[in-house]
C-alpha cells in the first residue's frame, strides 16, 4: 500500500476578482483533502470571496473539470469566475 503525506501541495491561481480578494496571482496551498469544493470554501472564508461556488468553474492543470474531480499533490488549479470577453 502506498502512503501519502497528510497534506497535499496545490498551486492555486487567481484571476479577476479572486486575485484582488486574495491579494496575489497565485499561491501554494496545503490542502487536507483532495476535495476541490472544500478547498474553495476554505479559501472563500479566508479571503472573503464575494462569489458563491455555483457561479465558479474549476480548471485543473489548464483544463475545465467538474468540481468532484479529486486533486493530487502538485496539481495546479484555477477558480474561474463568470467570464466577460468581447
Amino acid at each position: 500500500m502506498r502512503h501519502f503525506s497528510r497534506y497535499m501541495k496545490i498551486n492555486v491561481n487567481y484571476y479577476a476578482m479572486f486575485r484582488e480578494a486574495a491579494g496575489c496571482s497565485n499561491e501554494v496551498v496545503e490542502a487536507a483533502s483532495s476535495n476541490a469544493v472544500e478547498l474553495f470554501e476554505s479559501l472563500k472564508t479566508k479571503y472573503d470571496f464575494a462569489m458563491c461556488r455555483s457561479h465558479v468553474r474549476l480548471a485543473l492543470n489548464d483544463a475545465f473539470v467538474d468540481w468532484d474531480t479529486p486533486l493530487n499533490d502538485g496539481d495546479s488549479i484555477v477558480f474561474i469566475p463568470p467570464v466577460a470577453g468581447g
Partner: protein
Amino acid sequence: MFRILSEPLDIEALKASAEDPTCGALVTFEGWVRNHNEGHDVTSLEYEAYSALANAEGERILAEAKEKFGLKTAVCVHRVGHLQIGDIAVWVGVSTPHRDAAYKANRYIIDEIKVRVPIWKKEHYVTGDSGWVNCEECAKHGHKPEMDYSRQTVLPTIGKEGQQKLAESKVLVVGAGGLGCPVLAYLAGAGVGQLGIVEHDHLEASNLHRQFLYALDQVGEKKADLAEAWLKQYNPSIDIEAFPARFQTLEVEQLADYDLIIECTDCMDTKLLVNRAAIIAEVPVVFASIYQFEGQVQVVTPDSSCLECLYEDGTPNEVLTCAVAGVLGAVPGVIGSIQALEAIKQLLGLEGRLSNELLIVNLVDYSMRKLKLPRNSNCPAHDKENPVPESIEVTIDEINLSDYQVIDIREPNEVAVSSLPCDHQHIPMNELLNNPSAINKDKAYLLVCAAGVRTQYTANAFRSAGYNKVYSLIGGNRMLPEI
C-alpha cells in the same frame, strides 16, 4: 487561429489572414470599448485572461464553428491589458463560400467567446469606482435564477417528493415534431431530470405551424440539435441528449436505461418497432397518433396490451401522415399535452393513468372516450423470443448499396426522365406486385421510387408474403449517389 494580444490589433493584417480565394464571403466583427455600460459612464477597461485555457477554449470554439458552418478560415483575436474608449477589444473574421454561413458562424464565435473563454473585464467609471463585469452582478444576486417548480409542487399529488422523483427520471422522446414539441416542452418545464430526443429529420418550413420549438431561420438544420438547444435555454438545470438519427439505430440496452419512452412520430413502421423494442427492454411507452381532428393515446407496459394487440390481423400499413392528411397545429398540441400529462402520471404513479385502454379524443365535438383494450394472448409482440423486426424502410446512409439488388419500380415515363445512377432492374410497381416470382425470397432487394411511398407499400406487401429481405428506400431515387 485564436490569439490573445496585449498590443493594439492590426486590422488590415487580420483581415488578410482571414481571406480565402475560394470564398465569396468574409464577415468581420469588431468589438469596441464604449463609454457606458448598464447606466454607468465608463472611462476605460481592463481585460485579463487565463491564457493557457483561454487559447485552448478559443481554438475549440473556432474548430466547432468550422465544423458546424463549413468555414474555410476563422480568426479571432482578443486584447488584454488596459484599453481606452474606441479601442478594439475583440476581432472575429470568417470566410465561407456563401454569405449566410459566414454571418451565422461569426455570430456563433463571438457569442461563445463571451461565455466560455476565461477572459475578464474590469470597468473603470467616471466616478472613480471600478467593477468586474458579470462577477459583481452574480455576487450581488448570490446565485443565478433557478427554475421554480412551486406552482406544481403545491399540488398535493406532486409535492416535494414528486418533484424529486421527476428530477431523477429519464425519459426518451421519439420524434420531435407536432406531438414531440409539446411533450418535450412540458416535460422539460416540469423538471424531468434527463430527456433524450430521437429525431432524424431536418427542419422544413411546413413543420413550423405546429412545431414551436423551431424558427423560420433554422430551416434545413437538424431538428434534434435545434430542440436540444431550445430546451437547454428553457431549463438549464436538466440534462438533454440529442440523437439526430432514426430510432432503429438505438440499441435495446440504450432503451433499458430510460424510465419511460414517449412515442411521437407519425410513422407506423417506427411505432411498431418502438412497441417491440420497449417490451423487450421492459420500458413503458406512451404512444399517440393523430388523424386530422382526432387523436389516440395508449400506454404500453411489459404486462399490458400493446400496439399490436390492437390490430389482430396484422398492422395497418397504410397510415396517412400529416403531410398527406393535413393537420392544424393545435391538434397535436392538445394530444401531445395529454401525452406529457400521462408521462408525469406514469412517472409518479398518479391516479387515473391509462392501463389496457385506448383513449380517443375527438376535437370536432370535444368528446373523449376510453375503450377497454385487453391483452391479446396471441399477440406476437409479447413473445420475447421474437426478435425486434427489422425496419422495412432504410435510409441511404444506413446501408451498403452493393449488398442489395436495386429495383426501380417507377413507371417507364418517369424512368425516361431520370434513370438510376447505379446497377438496377426496372420493374414497374404493378408489374412487380402481380408477378412476385420475379424476385427471390432469399435475396436482399432495395426498392426505389420517386419519394419512398410506393416502395413502402410494395415492400410491405412482399414482407406479408414472406419476402423478408425487401426494403424501401426512404426519400426515393434522388437519395442515390451520383457516380
